[in-house]
């Protein structure tokens, strides 16, 4: 299509406006949208190739820009979107990623338990999480934080979250904190764009592309469970986890919120989250709350469990327990 036609279109709109002398905002926008659409189409067919990369990339990015919220997509649209993101990653970064849009398993509600007695503060879980979830290496984003606490302390808010010495230290215990996937999550209520919600399997997820970066959810979360991308996340291509999920560890952009997703790309395949798998002391228990035979249910039934800030009625699906 001829870009000149686009120009003439726009001029016509302006002329129309001048003639009518009552150019309302709505009329102007209508005309502008029309012109933009024509212009966009012109770009796709070759105009601006040098500026925006290949026409294939341009077309993918164009479609990507107009995609729906993940929850409104049909299964076909989800698959299409995921394929598009795979292609885009290949064009832009040259990595072969496999992205999934696997839906939640029926009859599953994920629960997590953390053994305060067993954790020795080795922080293998943190390292595994950073690697698995493609977290920003530049700003050292971490979903998990381990607090070194003295005996008698009850809340991680008074613990030492930045220890770096040989562990475990005598007369101390260690308490890990991450997103607790509250059943009654305050962050979801705070989000103005419905970019975050709870999946039927209990995982609180973020549609990164619908996040506007207002950080209301961060302010609403009483557990400091959310992380904000202050800069464009940087992950060395060699270290990138290529098995990704749309709601999980796919690459985020600057200005988007991210958080622990119980490794949705792993847990929906029946695998353990990276932190559970990495834990050298077996302090982390993960499983299906709706399965009466699961380990997590055994812990809840037979152990002394507590939840952090239970009085806030956020109903987290993350329990601490002691041996």
């Amino acid at each position, binding site marked *: 299509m001829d870009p000149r036609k686009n120009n003439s279109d726009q001029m016509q709109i302006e002329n129309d406006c001048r003639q009518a002398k009552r150019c309302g905002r709505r009329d102007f926008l209508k005309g502008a949208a029309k012109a933009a659409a024509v212009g966009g189409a012109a770009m796709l067919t070759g105009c601006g190739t040098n500026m925006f990369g290949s026409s294939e990339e341009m077309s993918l990015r164009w479609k990507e820009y107009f995609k729906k919220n993940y929850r409104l997509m049909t299964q076909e649209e989800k698959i299409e979107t995921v394929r598009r993101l795979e292609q885009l990653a290949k064009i832009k970064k040259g990595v072969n990623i496999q992205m999934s849009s696997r839906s939640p*398993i*029926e*009859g*599953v*509600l994920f*629960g997590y338990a953390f*053994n305060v007695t*067993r954790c*020795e*503060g*080795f*922080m*293998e879980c*943190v*390292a595994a999480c*950073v690697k698995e979830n493609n977290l920003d290496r530049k700003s*050292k984003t*971490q979903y998990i*934080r*381990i607090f070194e606490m003295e005996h008698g302390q009850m809340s991680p808010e008074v613990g030492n*979250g*930045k*220890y*770096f010495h*040989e*562990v*475990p230290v005598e007369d101390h215990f260690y308490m890990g904190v991450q997103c607790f996937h509250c*059943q*009654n999550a305050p962050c979801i209520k705070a989000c103005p764009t419905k970019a975050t919600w709870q999946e039927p399997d209990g995982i609180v997820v973020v549609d990164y592309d619908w996040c506007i970066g207002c950080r209301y959810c961060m302010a609403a979360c009483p557990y400091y469970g959310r992380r904000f991308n202050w800069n464009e996340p940087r992950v060395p291509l060699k270290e990138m986890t290529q098995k990704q999920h749309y709601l999980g560890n796919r690459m985020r952009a600057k200005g988007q919120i991210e958080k622990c997703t119980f490794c949705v790309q792993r*847990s929906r*395949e*029946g*695998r*353990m989250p990276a932190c*559970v798998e990495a*834990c050298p*002391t*077996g302090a*982390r*228990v*993960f*499983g*299906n*709350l*709706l*399965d*009466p*035979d*699961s*380990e997590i*249910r*055994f*812990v*809840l039934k*037979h*152990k002394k469990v507590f939840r952090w800030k239970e009085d806030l009625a956020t*109903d987290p*699906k993350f329990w601490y*327990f002691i*041996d």
Partner: protein
Amino acid sequence: MKTPTLKNRFWNIIPALLILFSGSPAYSTDDGVVQIYKNATPPFDDQKQVDAVRPLAVNSVQVTERYQGGHFWTETRKDKLQRFSCSQCHNNKPVTIRRAAEVAHGDIVLKHGSASRPLSCYTCHKKDERDFLVTEQGMKVDMDHSYQMCGQCHFRQKKDWVGGAHGKRISYWAGQRLVKNCTGCHDPHSPLFKKRWPATYSPPLTKNK
């Protein structure tokens, strides 16, 4: 005499109502996650529901005990021991081995049990049964089933291990339950985890601190 009006009766009822409901909490306990899982209808067949789970690895062995969900499996031990079976060397025939001093168990550090009553080699290994462990009651225990040996003293941990509060599952939360053996995490000769540096560190939350 005046008959009590409807309004008066209503006011009379209020103290009674207050006493009646004083025991119930102001918040609802019906829709919490605790109630959700307590109402969960068994059974959940995760082997059918979760299609991505791979079948059990070859190097696994069925545990002789059952957990709440039936049989479960643990990792084998014998194939990980460098010089099994023990009776290759420990037999009545004279054997000549090159580098015998290195091959002998000089590298083993035994730090098990309390300082006043430490365990010795012969607490678990016996002269007559080189390829097996022998419990205090004289029961022969296969090396793959070492949990039976550890469970003599650490019965609480064993109970938790069978149920799922101690130890850990391998790779999958779904499918057939495959857990780490005691020796998968603990060195049986010095079972306490050693002090070491953490794998990474957390940056301070604020610059001022």
